């Protein structure tokens, strides 16, 4: 007998490893990146690269200073955060903005709270909110699709000719967006954050993640259904075409990106299936409330961050009970 290896059971292990999961998420985001490039030009790619690289850098730096190990695994998760952050930005932001966001996301939100798997709130969304609050002028300027901005312009000057309001601004005001059909919303031919515009591509990526069993159906379904139903039941203004209104709500802003990539983030969501349903539901309700009554047109980021704090209480609340007698 060789030098025996005495492990306790189980003596076999499954295939999926953290790195592969993260790789799958990156793959699933790819269509959204392509759509972003199509509508807003190659600058999208530049923003993504800057954001991803700075997230990986800051993550490693933070881990180093906190005396934690870092390696490919943590890198992969930082890359996902980086990509998500870039996808939340308008295309016209200066190139240093994602770097700021990455520093906040990785150093403060992630590493200060204990690193991979320990952060309370979603780093990408937290960074987005941080940037929205700190640089409101930069984060609120959206350009029209196909009005390409030079890819490497450090701090582009945006003329009135290229900027426009997002559909959300209209929705917030109680009216349907001018000149943007539902189909355009669905495909992504509208103003918005670079990775959020194309509901179609995000849906594709989300279905891929579901198929690969990276995410479970509970969170996205509960979230999307809640947003849709609340839009249907309580449309703003006097919109008799409620079904159409609800669809606009669904395809606008960060709803689709959040549904499949933000609220399904492992670390900041509950683990029980009922907890996940409630989590998605809560995100949906808060999104609706903030959109309708808040001063920001977009409510998704705040909604998700608030719910992030509730993920442990939700797990507690939905802790699986012991099987009861004869329950069937």
């Amino acid at each position, binding site marked *: 007998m060789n030098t025996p290896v005495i492990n306790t059971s189980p*003596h*076999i292990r499954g295939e999926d490893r953290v790195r592969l999961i993260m790789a799958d998420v990156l793959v699933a985001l790819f269509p959204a990146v392509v759509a972003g490039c199509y509508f807003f030009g190659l600058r999208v790619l530049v923003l993504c690269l800057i954001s991803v690289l700075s997230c990986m850098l800051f993550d490693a730096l933070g881990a180093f200073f906190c005396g934690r190990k870092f390696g490919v695994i943590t890198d992969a998760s930082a890359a996902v955060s980086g990509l998500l952050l870039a996808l939340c930005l308008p295309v016209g932001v200066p190139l240093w903005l994602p770097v700021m966001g990455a520093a906040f996301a990785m150093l403060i939100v992630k590493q200060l709270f204990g690193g991979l*798997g320990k952060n309370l709130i979603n780093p990408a969304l937290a960074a987005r909110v941080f940037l929205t609050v700190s640089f409101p002028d930069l984060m609120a300027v959206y350009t029209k699709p196909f009005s390409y901005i030079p890819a490497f312009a450090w701090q582009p000057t945006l003329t009135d000719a290229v900027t426009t309001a997002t559909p959300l601004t209209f929705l917030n005001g109680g009216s349907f967006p001018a000149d943007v059909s539902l189909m355009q919303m669905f495909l992504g031919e509208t103003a918005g954050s670079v990775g959020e515009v194309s509901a179609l591509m995000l849906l594709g990526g989300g279905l891929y993640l579901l198929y690969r069993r990276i995410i479970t159906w509970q969170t996205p379904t509960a979230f999307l259904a809640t947003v849709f139903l609340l839009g249907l039941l309580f449309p703003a203004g006097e919109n008799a075409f409620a079904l159409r209104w609800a669809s606009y709500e669904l395809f606008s802003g960060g709803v689709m990106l959040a549904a499949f990539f933000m609220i399904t983030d492992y670390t900041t969501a509950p683990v029980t*299936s009922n907890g996940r349903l409630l989590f998605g539901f809560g995100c949906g309700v808060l999104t609706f409330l903030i959109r309708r009554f808040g001063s920001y047109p977009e409510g998704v980021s705040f909604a998700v961050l608030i719910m992030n704090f509730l993920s442990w209480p939700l797990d507690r609340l939905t802790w699986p009970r012991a099987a009861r*007698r004869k329950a069937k």
Partner: protein
Amino acid sequence: MTGTFRGGIHPPTMKQATQNKATVVLSAPPRLYVPLLQHIGAPLSAAVEKGQRVLMGQVIGQSDAPLSSPVHAPVSGTVASVELYLHPNGSRVPTVIIENDGLDEVHPSVQPCPIAEADMTLPQLAELMRRAGITGLGGASFPAHVKLSSAEGKARYLLINGAECEPYITCNHRLMLERPEAVLGGIRLLKQALGLTEALVGIESNKLNAVTSLNRAGAEAMGIHCRLLKTKYPQGGERQLVRALTGLHVPDRRLPIDVGCVVFNVETCASVYDAYVTGMPLIERCVTVSGDAVNAPGNFRVRLGTLISHVAEVCGGLSDPPQTVLMGGPMMGTPLFDTSVAVIKNTSALLFFKQAKATYPEDGVCLHCGKCAGVCPSRLLPNYLVGFVRSRDWQEAEKHRLLSCMECGSCAYTCPAGIPLVQYMRLGKDMINQEKRRRKQG
């Protein structure tokens, strides 16, 4: 519709290597090492002495304790010694070492049971099973007569476990194919004793031909219904089987009998039948020999007390020196650090691997992905329980039902971060139980 339970995992079954290999009878080795501990319960004392001649089927170890099961001489020959010898569990236990004379002379006590099948009462069958030393052959080796007796007057369902959900193992599958009449005969006896008219056999859907085999041998006509179960680990766990076959939940800290179910493994049934028909006690069993270091994987009938090294040798030898040797399946089996231990009553498989298959990285960080919670058949949240165990918060751990962990290992199998979850669960369970014992004493 295939029955199933909630949670569980789908490891590669790896059964192709042996599922079509007919069971081969392995001739008894020149020397047998029969440990006097092959069941859950009280230890046995030797009933024979050094130098004494023993006959096949003779009792060589017994105990008066109710929770015990005697062991018998697997061959005829001379007792070379009764001494402490290495047990598969790693400790040294009293062992009867028998020099085989090769004659297989049967002890006069081995006689067919005179009671007609239709007159068999539960105490009679329980006594027959006790004397034959029959224990749960599926894995736990719980004395089967105790289980049967405890079911008296309470059993509403007789469930037979032919799930065989552990990867690699095919000995039950082969048994159902090759000796359906023995399996059915045993089930009939148990059914009769329990006063039930029907029995359900649970078989995983990857063993369709086992269902055909049992049905062809007349299962339906005997009131024995084969039910297909989803191929999923741990389908053969008692609670999971009860759930899949009857839809009943066995509550935490309760036994299947508390919901009116009694579960026996198919091989246990076959040995009940053998003991009834020939009177021969449990002295041999089916063992699957497999793994990537084995030249000729297969299924073998092995006398209890045969050394593992001997089994490996006579069934074709090993292609490489193995790094991991397992007794039982890869999910719940026992690792061996020495192959000079004997096959015992619950040895369902011997697996030889060139290399250790599962490794756990030291720096695994929980991502909170919830996959472990999704697969846990006991509906625990292993990721949080690990936290309680790490912070030594036994109270919290117990409150959150750590003791209901069946140690199936599904969580550790699944965890993408490679956290040895079930290992933490075991530690936690040990600590809670120790704490309890201390409180009881103090």
